[in-house]
């Protein structure tokens, strides 16, 4: 039968085999494993794995590690100012300026939108100083003249015929 510990709280078993549990919980778990073969088997296998991993000791770090690092740091200090500036931006020195840049962007966007929504009293004719209302009035006047001519020709058809003869 599967124990829910193996699926829901494996970290508890891992912490137990790693010796990272407090003594009270470890004792509780040990009592559980006396009656749970699956968890006991997990503990055995994990302990063996733990020992196997312990055998893998890394190589000692080179004695020249610090010296080489400080040489590289000194080389950074000797770089020209523009190079340090570029590196500063590469490694995050721009981050404090981010709120300021965002504020400038917001103000600029607001300025542009404000001007885009302003009422336009002039258009193509604006260059000659003529307003839209004046153009509309002129068009209306021309329409009226044309309408009057049509009415006039309709009331004096003979005049129109004599012209065509």
């Amino acid at each position, binding site marked *: 039968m599967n124990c829910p510990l193996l699926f829901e709280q*494996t970290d508890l078993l891992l912490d137990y085999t790693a010796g990272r549990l407090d003594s009270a919980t470890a004792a509780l778990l040990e009592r559980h494993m006396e009656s749970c073969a699956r968890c006991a088997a997990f503990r055995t296998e994990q302990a063996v794995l733990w020992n196997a991993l312990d055998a893998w000791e890394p190589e000692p770090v*080179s004695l020249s*590690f610090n010296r080489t*690092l400080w040489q590289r740091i000194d080389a950074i200090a000797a770089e020209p100012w523009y190079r340090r500036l570029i590196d500063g931006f590469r*490694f995050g020195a721009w981050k404090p300026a981010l709120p300021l840049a965002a504020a400038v962007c917001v103000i600029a966007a607001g300025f542009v939108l404000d001007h885009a929504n302003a009422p336009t009293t002039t258009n193509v004719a604006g260059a000659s100083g003529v307003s839209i209302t004046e153009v509309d009035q002129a068009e209306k006047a021309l329409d009226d003249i044309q309408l009057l001519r049509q009415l006039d020709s309709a009331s004096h058809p003979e005049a129109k015929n004599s012209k065509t003869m």
Partner: protein
Amino acid sequence: MWPRVNTVIGTSAVPDPDADLMLRVRDGDEDSFRVLLDKHRNSLVHFLYRMVQEQPVSEELAQEVFLRIYRSRASYEPTARFTTWMFRIATHLALNWLRDAKHERSQERLDEDRSSGMPARELPDRKLSVEQRMVYQARLQEVRDAIATLPEKQRAAVLMHKYEEMEYSQIAGVLEISESAVKSLLFRAYETLRARLAYMVTGGPR
């Protein structure tokens, strides 16, 4: 149902003296950087060595980590534990290196060295017999290979959990994933390793 328990190792609420040292580095105190370097150099190189399994590369990457820390000192803010930040940089560099096409070529050379019988590491105990040494080397190589075949994030999670004794929350911070995702990664990784190294339970190589 089992109660949620605290592990013996600390929690993220604990004050971080390393972050205090780094704040001093930010203010121009180079001695504090020396303290941080001496404190974390070995664990960082060892972590990187186990990640990339090449000593010169691990030291080169560790130097790059410390250089990046030094270069970004001016903008340092203690938003996370110092070691979380440091291991995040290290993990990114190691994963990038592992993914680099150059690595494939060096890995081929490494495999050639292994197949030619070159020992992976000298034994610490010189009293062992030749046979015991051979068994030890074989087992060690098996462990290295088992770790190396894990998917990259599983590998990083296991190394941080096993060798650096990091909490789940800190590993989550390094890998930038959730704590439950870390537990899932570790569960799968250890399952793979147990299956691969199962013969060590029964004794003797396969």
